[in-house]
């Protein structure tokens, strides 16, 4: 997709253009945005603005900025022809063919009628042009659709928001967006209906994540109490030039009074995202149209070249060489011939016009050129077009495969790269993310250990086993979501089109059963809640008893001086453990009927006062209590407030949805809230509800059990649900406080001072709270055991307490190892109590870090490190992430297919190993490689697969077919053209090498295009060398593609040799049959043409493995077409077709029995060797594929068994298969054995940036998967286009877990270790890797080459060149993806 430069879209008079160029230079790297409603700064701009009409933007600075019109089309009506031709002539092949055609216009060397040779070139050009035109038209239509979406823009004239099309939005416009609307441009958030100035957006359109990201109104605007009035906006915004970094936005807003305020990416709403849970927002457009980050990230369709195509291009070069050789040979022959007859006064000699005869050398030169024209068919002009056609059909069939269709999510497999389907049949390596790709990403709490005591949760395990069974009876399950009201469909009505266009693979992974998921997907697009399996955790009775005891005990002691001191150390740990589980996260509480529907209103005053804290808070003017509490002295109110709000902002992914009291019943006003299209201004707070809170409160309490938790990562939700099972329920979360509901204690409200979000360097997250019971400052930390264990407070072995603690630590470590062996994901929970002085000290530096303008991330990171030390271990949890259906089976098959599978995980090594056993990834004698590789992610998917298990069919069946079909078709093309050209070449020996042809020029030109093209296309599209079920039962058949068995240099040359033989037969049999006869040259030539056609079809017949009626029809049609065309052509005009003048030739020929006899004899003789060889080989040395086909033949006869039985059963020929297989392995052994793995990993490497927070889990939860879409990046990117540094996915807006790429670096895996020969699995356990792997990695040949260069910097990179070339088929799998537009 080509993007027009911004300037081209905004035609400006030359003077103006010159001016803004100058201005741009002056601006440097800044963009200045002013309100369009403001009086313009310069007089000249006023004039221009006035002239352009009232709606013209008047802001001088924005004059040159792109408007919001989306234009992805390449052509206009006028520019189509020249531009398209220009582009087509970038292909060397086209230039070559035109050159040949032009050569024909030179009288001395022309072979054919000049016009005629142009015909095929023009045909090819026309077909391509038509295709381009059609594609462009489709783009135009979708552009038009998007451009004409509506949104509310503030109008200066009407002083209110009016409906405008998207394309009419300009930089500097004020846009109002309502709930569930799609954001039309990159907009700076100036006002939100949310009292805290927050706005939630869903970035699914950009990155496939269905969770919510939080955005914040620009500082200084959130205090506006009344509705934001765009007319009063006089500030100037300075920000970066448009760039494609989704994770970054910097700038400042300069107010009239000269005050500056910083702008961050939390202030920017990105085009393509959807407003959620916020009634309405207002913002000013900063980047529009093609300057938006989403569009700058859209690289458009990828054109890649497959391995097979590269090989083919190489062979085309061989053909060129052959052509030159033949022409040269012929030229020399002609020179000699002319020299021989020069002085002989031969009657057939034709002198020049002046009577002189040509010198042999001149004649040879002319002959050479003419031969090139005559033999041009050797370079198959139609090959490229045919391949395109076949690939389009292959993509169609892959997309159409019902067995790759996921009913649950209504998504089928998507091919985004249209021209590398055959690479699917040659994959050698699979690099897969684990979480969400292999697993369901359904995190289920399994067991935990607290204070050194393990709670095995046996009941819970039994419960899970039950779910396992139930899941298999999917359809019978009663849909639990049936109570879901029909929502969403109306609300998102307006955006339905674009949603469908953009989000074709919505998934609903966390709904319980398939049936439910299906139902839910129909009802709503926004389910992100846990299934009953994940929610209904059966508590361990012992632990439950302990928790209850804590609760009771504290309820009694709560009003005493040190309530916690009344607990035993163990119980205290238990209590803290559960509090930490509950609050040390970013989980948001929502109500079930209204997922993601934010409930408005604050009703704290009405709830019963339970604690003195509550009391104090209620009567403190500020919502934060810092001013009135004992730590008020630490910071001024304003600093504190801004500080903490900033921090929570920093907790990027925290998706802080608030649910106050349970007031979520869907009153019509609320339901339509945000959906209602006519909303003129939001009503701040529904006053009606204020008046009867009591009644609603009761209802709310009834629903208390129905609380839903929405989390960034499913691990978090799992822990919160686990805590709830112990009656320690997260009741409410605001950005400054968290409430926990306990049976006896009631509601405990923790003042949330800071949230230090998860990042993959620290591998932990922390919350800083003020404990309501003790008024102390607590830090709860949750993280990877490897990290937490090192941060624990060193305990002296001198005193008993220290020894006890040490024992607890070692016990916990033991249990952690146990969990890992079970394949559970482990997390450690720890706490730290801060004295007020410590806190004050830390806060000081923390606030400094926050307010620092540069190096802020680094400082915040350091700050977090300072806080998270000297921790007290509470306990650890084990969470199970269940494997997706069919994963072990699929992996088994893929391994049998010879694929090497690498899985990346952030789990503990033991966990990884055990999951690997579960996946059948590991056999017991295999090595495990552990490494930390820092890498960089590249998002570019070529295929999107709904489920992992579909990979099996995609690769083993479709990949194999695609490869086999295309390889055979390409080979056939080469054969056909060589054979045809051979006929012409042999004739040269009998015509004095004069470049004369016996075949009529029309046949010569049309033969490839018309007569012989259809059957090979049908075969190329439909042929199945081995049926699907055999391919699936015998996955080792896939190796034929990996080893390029169908199309390798040897095959090519054998093919060419056969072509030479056949052309010899097809020439000399008619030669001898018509020797000494009175036949004329074109009658004889027509006979040979017919023979060639029959031979081609018979050859194709031998090569075709499955004959459907389409094949028969195509062959019949081909013959019919030839004879019909020939008969008509030969009867149409007696004098029109010089020099052949074939009048009535075909008619005479067809009346001659010799014609048929010669055709029969020649075709059969030509194919006899091939048939003989194939038959012999089929019996004596059958290839794997042939064996596979033989099973097909036999199975119905001998087994008479249903497909399934056959699929599982032992195949009769297995004994025979083995030796053959071994053979093939041993021959190819060296290939895989000396192969170092030339693979690089590109994962986004996090810099030390505390900005990356908000991911509360520590180890491996960084995978922001909300989708089980798999992406397979294939290895065919050209070096130039590889390594897009900022990919769409990496930088999902608001997802600040992704780091600025400037800090990323690439490391070469292959240089770190060699691939063991025997192990087809390698497990990479790397924390930093996996935490980045929400995005999809691309493994590309292009990047390989780049890495090769990189590897020079690495000390250990002994990597042979040929390895690099060999192992070039890898498949990268990762979850979550979405094309952004």
């Amino acid at each position: 997709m080509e993007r027009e430069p911004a300037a081209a879209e905004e035609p400006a008079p030359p003077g103006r253009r010159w001016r803004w160029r100058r201005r741009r230079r002056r601006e440097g790297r800044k963009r200045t945005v002013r309100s369009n409603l403001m009086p313009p700064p310069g007089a000249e701009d006023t004039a221009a603005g006035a002239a352009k009409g009232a709606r013209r933007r008047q802001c001088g600075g924005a004059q040159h900025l792109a408007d919001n019109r989306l234009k992805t089309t390449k052509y206009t009506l006028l520019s189509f022809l020249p531009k398209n031709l220009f582009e087509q002539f970038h292909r060397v092949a086209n230039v070559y063919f035109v050159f040949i055609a032009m050569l024909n216009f030179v009288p001395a060397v022309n072979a054919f009628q000049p016009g005629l040779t142009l015909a095929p070139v023009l045909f090819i050009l026309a077909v391509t042009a038509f295709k381009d035109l059609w594609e462009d038209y489709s783009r135009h239509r979708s552009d038009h659709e998007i451009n004409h979406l509506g949104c509310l823009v503030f109008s200066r004239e009407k002083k209110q928001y009016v409906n405008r099309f998207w394309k009419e939005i300009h930089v500097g416009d004020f846009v109002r967006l309502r709930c569930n609307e799609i954001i039309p441009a990159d907009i700076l958030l100036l006002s939100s209906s949310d009292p805290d100035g927050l706005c939630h957006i869903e970035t699914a359109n950009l990155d496939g994540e269905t969770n919510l990201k939080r955005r914040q109104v620009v500082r200084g605007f959130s205090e506006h109490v009344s509705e934001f009035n765009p007319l009063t906006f006089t500030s100037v915004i300075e920000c970066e030039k448009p760039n494609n970094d989704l994770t970054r936005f910097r700038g400042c807003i300069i107010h009239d009074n000269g005050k500056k305020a910083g702008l961050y990416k939390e202030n920017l709403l990105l085009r393509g995202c959807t407003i959620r849970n916020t009634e309405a927002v207002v913002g000013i457009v900063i980047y529009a149209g093609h300057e938006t980050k989403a569009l700058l990230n859209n690289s458009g369709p990828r054109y890649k070249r497959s391995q097979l195509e590269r090989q083919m291009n190489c062979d085309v070069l061989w053909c060129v060489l052959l052509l030159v050789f033949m022409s040269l040979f012929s030229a020399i022959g002609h020179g000699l011939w002319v020299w021989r007859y020069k002085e002989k006064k031969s009657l057939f000699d034709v002198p020049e016009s002046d009577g002189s005869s040509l010198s042999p050398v001149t004649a040879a030169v002319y002959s050479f050129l003419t031969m090139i024209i005559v033999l041009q068919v050797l370079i198959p002009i139609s090959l490229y077009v045919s391949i395109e056609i076949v690939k389009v059909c292959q993509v169609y069939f892959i997309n159409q495969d019902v067995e790759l269709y996921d009913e649950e999510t209504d998504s089928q497999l998507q091919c985004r790269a249209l021209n590398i389907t055959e690479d699917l049949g040659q994959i050698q390596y699979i690099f897969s993310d684990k979480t969400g790709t292999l697993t369901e990403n359904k995190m289920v709490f399994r067991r935990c250990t607290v204070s050194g005591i393990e709670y095995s949760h046996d009941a819970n395990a039994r419960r899970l086993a039950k779910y396992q069974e139930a899941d298999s009876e999917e359809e019978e399950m009663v849909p639990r979501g049936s109570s879901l009201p029909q929502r969403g469909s109306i609300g998102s009505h307006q955006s339905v089109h674009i949603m469908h266009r953009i989000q074709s693979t919505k998934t609903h992974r966390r709904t319980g059963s398939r049936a439910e998921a299906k139902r839910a997907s129909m009802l709503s697009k926004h389910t992100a809640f846990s299934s009953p399996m994940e929610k209904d955790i059966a508590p361990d009775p012992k632990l439950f008893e302990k928790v209850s005891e804590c609760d009771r005990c504290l309820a009694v002691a709560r009003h005493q001086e040190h309530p916690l001191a009344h607990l035993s150390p163990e119980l205290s740990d238990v209590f803290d453990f559960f509090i930490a589980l509950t609050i040390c996260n970013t989980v948001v509480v929502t109500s079930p009927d209204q997922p993601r529907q934010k409930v408005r209103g604050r009703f704290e005053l009405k709830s019963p006062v339970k604690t003195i804290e509550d009391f104090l808070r209620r009567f403190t003017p500020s919502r934060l209590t810092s001013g009135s509490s004992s730590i008020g002295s630490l910071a001024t109110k304003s600093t504190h407030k801004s500080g903490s709000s900033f921090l929570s902002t920093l907790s990027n992914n925290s998706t802080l949805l608030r649910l106050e009291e349970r007031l979520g019943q869907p009153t019509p006003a609320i339901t339509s809230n945000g959906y209602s299209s006519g909303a003129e201004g939001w009503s701040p707070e529904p006053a009606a509800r204020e008046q009867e809170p009591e009644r609603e409160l009761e209802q709310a309490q009834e629903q208390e059990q129905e609380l839903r938790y929405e989390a960034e990562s499913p691990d978090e939700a799992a822990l919160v649900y686990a805590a709830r099972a112990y009656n320690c329920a997260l009741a409410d979360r605001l950005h400054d406080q968290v409430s926990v509901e306990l049976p006896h204690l009631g509601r405990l409200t923790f003042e949330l001072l800071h949230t230090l979000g998860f990042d993959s360097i620290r591998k932990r997250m922390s919350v800083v709270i003020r404990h309501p019971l003790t008024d102390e400052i607590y830090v709860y930390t949750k993280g990877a055991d490897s990290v937490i264990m090192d941060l624990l407070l060193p305990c002296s072995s001198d005193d008993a307490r220290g020894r006890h603690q040490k024992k607890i630590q070692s016990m916990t470590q033991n249990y952690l190892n146990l969990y890992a062996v079970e394949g559970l994901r482990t997390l450690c929970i720890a706490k730290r109590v801060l004295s007020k002085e410590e806190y004050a000290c830390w806060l000081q530096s923390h606030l400094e870090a926050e307010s620092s303008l540069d190096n802020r991330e680094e400082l915040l990171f350091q700050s977090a490190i300072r806080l998270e030390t000297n921790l007290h271990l509470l306990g650890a949890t084990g969470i199970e992430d269940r494997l997706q259906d069919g994963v072990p089976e699929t992996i088994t098959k893929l391994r049998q297919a010879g694929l090497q599978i690498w899985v990346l995980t952030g789990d503990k090594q033991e966990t990884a190993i055990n999951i690997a056993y579960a996946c059948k990834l590991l056999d017991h004698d295999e090595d495990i490689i552990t490494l930390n590789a820092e890498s960089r992610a590249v998002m570019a998917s070529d295929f999107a697969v709904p489920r992992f298990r579909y990979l099996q069919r995609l690769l083993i069946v479709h990949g194999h077919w695609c490869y086999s079909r295309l390889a055979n078709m390409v080979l056939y093309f080469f054969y056909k053209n060589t054979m045809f050209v051979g006929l012409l070449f042999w004739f040269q020996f009998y015509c004095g090498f004069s470049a004369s042809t016996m075949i009529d020029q029309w046949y010569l030109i049309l033969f490839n295009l018309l007569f012989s093209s259809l059957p090979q296309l049908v075969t190329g599209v439909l042929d199945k060398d081995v049926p699907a079920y055999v391919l699936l039962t015998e996955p080792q058949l896939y190796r034929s593609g990996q080893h390029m068995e169908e199309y390798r240099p040897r095959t090519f040359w054998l093919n060419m040799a056969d072509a030479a033989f056949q052309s010899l037969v097809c020439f000399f049999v008619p030669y001898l049959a018509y020797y000494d006869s009175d036949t004329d040259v074109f009658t004889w030539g027509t006979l040979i043409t017919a023979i060639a056609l029959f031979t081609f079809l018979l050859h194709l017949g031998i090569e075709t493995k499955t004959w459907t009626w389409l094949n028969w029809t195509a062959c019949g049609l081909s013959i019919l077409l030839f004879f019909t065309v020939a008969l008509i052509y030969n009867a149409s005009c007696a004098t029109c077709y010089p020099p052949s003048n074939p009048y009535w030739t075909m008619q005479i020929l067809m009346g001659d029995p010799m014609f048929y006899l010669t055709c029969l004899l020649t075709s059969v003789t030509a194919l006899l060797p091939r048939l003989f060889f194939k038959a012999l080989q089929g019996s004596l040395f059958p290839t794997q594929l042939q064996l596979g086909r033989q099973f097909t033949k036999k199975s119905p006869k001998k087994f008479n068994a249903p497909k399934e039985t056959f699929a599982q059963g032992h195949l009769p020929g297995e004994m025979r298969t083995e030796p053959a297989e071994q053979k093939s392995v041993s021959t190819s052994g060296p290939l895989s054995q000396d192969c170092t793995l030339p693979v690089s990993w590109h994962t986004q490497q996090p810099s030390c940036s505390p900005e990356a927070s908000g991911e509360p889990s520590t180890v491996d939860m960084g995978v922001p998967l909300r989708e089980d879409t798999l992406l397979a990046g294939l290895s065919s990117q050209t070096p130039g286009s590889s390594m897009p540094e900022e990919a769409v996915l990496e930088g999902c807006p608001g997802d600040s877990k992704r780091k600025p790429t400037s800090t990323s670096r690439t490391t070469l895996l292959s240089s770190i270790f060699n691939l063991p020969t025997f192990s087809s699995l390698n497990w990479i356990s790397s924390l930093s890797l996996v935490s980045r792997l929400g995005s999809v990695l691309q493994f590309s040949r292009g990047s390989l080459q780049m890495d090769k260069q990189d590897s020079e910097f690495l000390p250990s990179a002994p990597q042979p060149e040929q390895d690099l070339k060999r192992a070039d088929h890898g498949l990268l799998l990762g979850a979550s993806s979405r094309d952004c537009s």
Partner: protein
Amino acid sequence: MTWSATARGAHQPDNTAFTQQRLPAWQPLLSAGIALPLFFCAGLAFIGLGLGLYYSSNGIKELEYDYTGNPGTGNCSVCAQAGQGRAPPPSCSCAWCFALPELFQGPVYLYYELSNFYQNNRRYGVSRDDAQLSGLPSALHHPVNECAPYQLSAAGLPIAPCGAIANSLFNDSFSLWHQRQPGGPYVEVPLDRTGIAWWTDYHVKFRNPPLVNGSLALAFQGTAPPPNWPRPVYDLSSDPNNTGFINQDFVVWMRTAALPTFRKLYARIRQGNYSAGLPRGAYCVNIIYNYPVRAFGGHKRLIFSSISWMGGKNPFLGIAYLVVGSLCILTGFVMLVVYIRYQDQNDEDEDEQ
């Protein structure tokens, strides 16, 4: 959105035989077992055809004489020597006499054959104007450029017929004489010189230009004959239906041969006493030797040939069929051996199982 509409996903592919690639298909499997009957059948059929062709071809009689006149090869060498290097060569005649011990079964065709004559070379083959030959008056006076250098005469007159092919028209002529009894008089055997060209060539492709005042000569006024021609095109024959562009010798010559050794039909012998063939007796062919071929190493031959359904004598096709047929049978046997061995192995395998 209704339930029924969403019961089936919007993206669910059609479940048809075509889209799911489940079209009923015949899946032949190339192996010895399958190829075996194929080879035997084809072999038998080919041998049958080959035998038929062979005997057909064998039944065809041919009588051939090389009259190029290389030294010491007969009396035509005199003419060959005489004509060497002269243009136009003098009218020289020589004879080829032979005796037929028995009836030469008819219908008998008389061919002449040229060797080493590249009628199919490119510059020669294109040097003609089909429009002129079809009698188009405008083309008659404006031959196409492809005819160069035989497009315009030295005097600047358009050449009719133009081009190298026409210029090199074969101009030997033959007459056949039959001596019924030894010592008896030689009787001229009537040679049918009509109907030797393709019907469509004679009637459609080649047309004389419209007569002027009833005269063909006037129609060709303003044109020059090709340089090699001793007389203009309208004088090729006295028969008005066989002169000008529609002279059958000319038409036959203009159909350029496929290979450098070629025959062209000269006459058919089918009239009078000779309709059944040439009776036994002595024969002499009187050759008017004009056409110089020795300069470029060419050969001229005269051939009497009878005709069957398969055309002229051609032993190759029959032999080729026999050979290929035999090869098929042979391969068939190889396949049989392979098949039997393979089958045994297969059975063993199954037994093992």
